[in-house]
């Protein structure tokens, strides 16, 4: 064998050579770089978007063999076991096991629970109604995905959950119902969460009058430590008995919250909200990004998903606002309807938007704590909606 042949063969095994015959992967590399730009320069949810974009970059480098969608197809079809994937798969296949099993979203929820103060919700339990109303976006998008775009029910349910404005919930449900669509759904969910300050205000101004936006709310009553400790235990028992499929997500959320509120497990709370959360975020984001393989991602349906995601967010905002308006009327003008839009989850960004819009109408208006109630109620609401969709379409 001559040196020329050797060099020729070496060149043929290089990624550059393979890239010349695969324009799709080249496009995906460009998309990954755009997402990296959005995360690093525009600071759109950088903690997740950077990992997702880098996972997307790695999986689309020809010859890298870090992620094998065909192995996962065979696993779903029952032709392979997880041990086969560990044996034959790449690094990102192994990391993806945590997504597929629902481990990462649940652990992230534990960290979210350890960071969440349910005090505003306990002080004003009516907030739960706003958190429920804002789930309208999930079902509106689900309906449109089936009625207008002709998606399968499983995929439509996964698209709808974007309206929950909750990344881990969207990933958890999609990995079980429509794993092929995981990347576009996760990207849409996190991108729109970052764009909440742009998406919500026009709808908020359109649906409310200036008088409603100016409404000042009474200070919230104090909540006892005992109530804060009992809350996660009671929620877990009642909601998980009502809808067992939601137990992994809600159970972890409430366990994290119990770590925080008990006052006796500060070390565990600290680990759940910092070290564990950071480690899982790295694994989750890169492995979700890895599912964006060119052949599956570059599809007109990806654009439909992005569009439906936006519709889901808008309907979620509308749902919360409309119930907020109703509560404004029924309470004799004591509840500012702007806090309804915070029911979309996206903690705490959506609550901040309510605060900003309230202060814009009346600079002495402080809605943040009032909006945190519907905001955290939205997290529970979207988890319940995901549990319902999984119970119905999860087979």
């Amino acid at each position: 064998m001559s040196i020329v042949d050797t060099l020729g063969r070496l060149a043929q095994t290089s990624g550059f050579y393979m890239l010349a015959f695969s324009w799709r992967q080249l496009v995906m590399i460009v998309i990954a770089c755009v997402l990296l730009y959005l995360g690093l320069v525009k600071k759109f949810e950088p903690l997740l978007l950077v990992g997702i974009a880098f996972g997307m970059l790695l999986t689309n480098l020809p010859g890298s063999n870090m992620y094998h969608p065909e192995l996962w197809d065979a696993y779903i079809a029952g032709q392979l076991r997880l041990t086969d994937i560990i044996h034959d798969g790449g690094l990102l296949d192994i990391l993806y096991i945590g997504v597929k099993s629902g481990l990462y979203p649940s652990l992230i929820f534990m960290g979210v629970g350890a960071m969440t103060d349910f005090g505003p919700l306990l002080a004003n339990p009516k907030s739960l109604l706003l958190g429920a109303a804002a789930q309208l976006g999930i079902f509106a998008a689900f309906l449109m995905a089936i009625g207008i775009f002709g998606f399968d029910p499983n995929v439509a349910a996964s698209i709808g959950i974007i309206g929950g404005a909750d990344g881990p919930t969207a990933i958890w449900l999609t990995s079980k119902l429509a794993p092929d669509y995981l990347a576009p759904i996760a990207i849409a969910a996190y991108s729109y969460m970052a764009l909440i300050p742009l998406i919500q205000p026009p709808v908020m101004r359109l649906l409310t009058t200036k008088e409603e936006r100016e409404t000042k709310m009474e200070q919230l009553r104090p909540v006892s430590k005992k109530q804060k400790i009992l809350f996660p235990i009671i929620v877990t028992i009642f909601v998980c008995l009502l809808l067992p499929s939601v137990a992994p997500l809600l159970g972890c959320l409430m366990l994290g919250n119990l770590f925080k509120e008990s006052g006796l497990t500060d070390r565990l709370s600290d680990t759940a909200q910092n070290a564990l959360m950071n480690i899982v975020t790295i694994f989750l984001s890169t492995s979700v990004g890895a599912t964006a393989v060119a052949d599956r991602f570059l599809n007109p349906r990806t654009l439909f998903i992005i569009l439906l995601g936006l519709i889901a967010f808008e309907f979620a905002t509308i749902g919360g606002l409309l119930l907020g308006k109703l509560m404004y009327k029924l309470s004799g003008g004591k509840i500012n309807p702007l806090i309804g839009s915070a029911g979309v989850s996206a903690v705490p960004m959506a609550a901040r938007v309510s605060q900003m819009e309230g202060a814009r109408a009346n600079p002495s208006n402080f809605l943040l704590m009032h909006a945190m109630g519907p905001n955290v109620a939205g997290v529970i609401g979207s988890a319940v909606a995901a549990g319902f969709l999984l119970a119905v379409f999860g087979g």
Partner: protein
Amino acid sequence: MSFLDALLYSLAGMAVVFFALVLLMCIIKIMTAVGDRAERRAAPAAAAPAAAPAPAPADRPLAPGTAGEVKLYDTDPRTAAMLMAIVADEMQAPLNELRFISIREVKEN
């Protein structure tokens, strides 16, 4: 799946979400009512000993948990309290485990 079926699933989904969260709302209200009642019961019991006249102290006692008295020079008590709280926070130590001897305002000549 037909559009009508999807619509029915959507309505059922919204109903389940509302049912779960209304159930939680009721539970929170019950929890609050029970907690308030327990507090009201405990309040008269706690108020009874408080109503008894306290014996006048012979000298001004130190606050519970305090680590001695601090001498203030050109510093009002409010500023001194704030400074001690900041020092305790910076040192990550409870205030009653720190001993402040004196606080003096340094004036530039």
